[in-house]
């Protein structure tokens, strides 16, 4: 886990011939690509191409039928999601799933779970160490909220937020586990124009801090604005990857992604 062992030693995440199907339905097969540390990789493709399934396979929620995922050189296929979160790989979902009766800050604190060090037994009598740790975690949860521009909402009930705000808070919750790789499943779905801009700013500044991001997104403008690299998943495999501008100009991509209509 030390800084030097992973410095420029290769991609932080590498997918090798991943295949996944549900029953008779093959979702994708032989998917391979690398993600360099500190980059933002956009994963695009038409509906049903298997983007969310792919993220599920990488984050431990789904077990791929074959192939492997390596995180910093070690294989993580088949490792449980909560263990992966501890190791530094976590994800968000298409639904924000906030606890509506709790405050926004408490919801973000859920993400701090893996960073708490005090034993649970000491919590029984609220030892000072536990209280100090809770305060430190709350401060760090505020930072995470601040980084998505939602610090002013911290003490509101999560249920009172707009869908877009809830989405941003769920990103903050994922951030507060201090991941090194964050997989975002359509983070901009349901966000309005200004929230999308805020999200793009937040993702860019997270990239500056060295976080590696894999983002599924349908908003092509957003994905172009934040990505260093694009991977296009369609027809059960990766049909193209490369620089965002080049990928978006490719006729096969336009055809697969936007349908035949715009290809002419």
């Amino acid at each position, binding site marked *: 886990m030390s800084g030097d062992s992973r410095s420029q030693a290769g991609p932080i995440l590498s997918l090798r011939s991943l295949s996944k199907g549900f029953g008779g339905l093959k979702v994708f097969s032989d998917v391979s690509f690398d993600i360099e540390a500190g980059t933002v990789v956009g994963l695009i493709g038409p509906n049903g191409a298997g983007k969310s399934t792919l993220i599920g396979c990488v984050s431990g929620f789904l077990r791929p039928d074959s192939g492997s995922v390596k995180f910093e050189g070690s294989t993580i296929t088949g490792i449980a999601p909560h263990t992966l979160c501890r190791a530094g790989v976590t994800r968000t979902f298409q639904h924000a799933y906030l*606890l509506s009766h709790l405050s926004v800050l*408490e919801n973000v604190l*859920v993400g701090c779970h893996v960073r708490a060090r005090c034993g649970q037994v000491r919590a029984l009598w609220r030892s000072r160490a536990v209280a*100090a740790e*809770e305060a430190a975690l709350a*401060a760090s949860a505020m930072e995470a909220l601040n980084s998505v521009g939602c610090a002013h909402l911290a003490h509101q009930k999560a249920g009172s937020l707009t869908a877009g705000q809830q989405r941003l808070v769920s990103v903050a919750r994922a951030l507060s586990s201090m991941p090194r790789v964050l997989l975002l499943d359509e983070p901009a779905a349901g966000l309005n124009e200004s929230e999308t801009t805020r999200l793009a700013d937040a993702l860019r500044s997270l990239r500056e801090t060295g976080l590696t991001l894999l983002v599924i997104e349908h908003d092509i403008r957003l994905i172009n604005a934040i990505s260093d690299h694009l991977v296009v998943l369609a027809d059960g495999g990766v049909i193209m990857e490369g620089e965002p501008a080049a990928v978006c100009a490719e006729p096969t991509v336009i055809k697969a992604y936007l349908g035949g209509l715009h290809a002419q």
Partner: protein
Amino acid sequence: MRPKGPAPREQAVKFDDREADRPDVAQPAAGLAATPMSSLGRIWVRVPQKGVLAAAVIVLLLPQLLGDDILPSMILAGLLGIAAVGLGLLAGRAGLVSLGQAALMAVGGYSAAYAAVRWDWPAEAALLFGTFAGLVVAWVTSPICRLRGFYLATATLTLALIVQRLLVAFASLTGGGNGFPGIPPLSLFGYEFNSEFRFYVLVWGVALLGVALNDNLLRGRFGRALDTIHGDEATAAAAGVNVGRYKSAAWLISGGYAALAGGLYAYYNLFLSPDQFPLSMSIELIAGVVVGGAAAALGPLVGMVALVVIPTRLDLGPSVSAMIAPALLVIFASFLPRGIVPHVRDLSDSLLRRVRG
């Protein structure tokens, strides 16, 4: 509302130290390290939250106000209340509805009684043994926590039936249908609990201590983890919560509370029989949790008082009394699902706000 950490709202702080080892929670300064004395002081200051203190005062005043006839039903309410506090954690926070808590009470009661009578263990050891036995049974049965909703309810219900059958079947250990007599009167550390009032204070002391410990535990990351599991298990897993382990932990804790309640019950009754732990007792426990307020710390105790003491005071007779718990369960679940305590708290909050202008 709960975490009152420093709130640097306006500060534009970015994540730094990402290069350092990842989980770098600020360590509390060395000066805060707990010494035994100060930690005792903290137990005193922190554990009894206002509600628990208020409840303790009410518990002590109640026999003076209403007379000693209230003691037997209050003791029963407190005994069931201890089990209900554990069930509040399991059902109210983790969302795992168990209909088998009476089985764990029976395990705790019979184990404590067995140790006290057959092995001549002192009460302190026998009660610990009973609780331990409950924890072991909970541990062995913890795989059923993987079930959800209806299936979990059915599995725990089955557990209750199985334990009742086993109590009858293993007559050489349990006395079978004839019951288990001869439990000595309770004496802890040389103090005899030989009057109803003493037993009443003991039971309610344990119950309120249980509430305080439960509440402390649930205020931090344990409670947040259970809440998230209740809401969405995938979100909890993505946040690093070991869902299976936390559900098992909740099941074990609730089993420990139930078994301790069962042990105290054995020492209160001095005689045990399988029909003292009927299915209706499990239903009564879940009804108490729902009626009092599943997510409120004091809810289960308030609920048990409402279910046990009020029918006795109103002298409704056994057949009507038996209908009170299920009826209130249905009424509260349908119309006041949050339970008595949260509604009373809301009411008093709004009254206070009005008084203060």
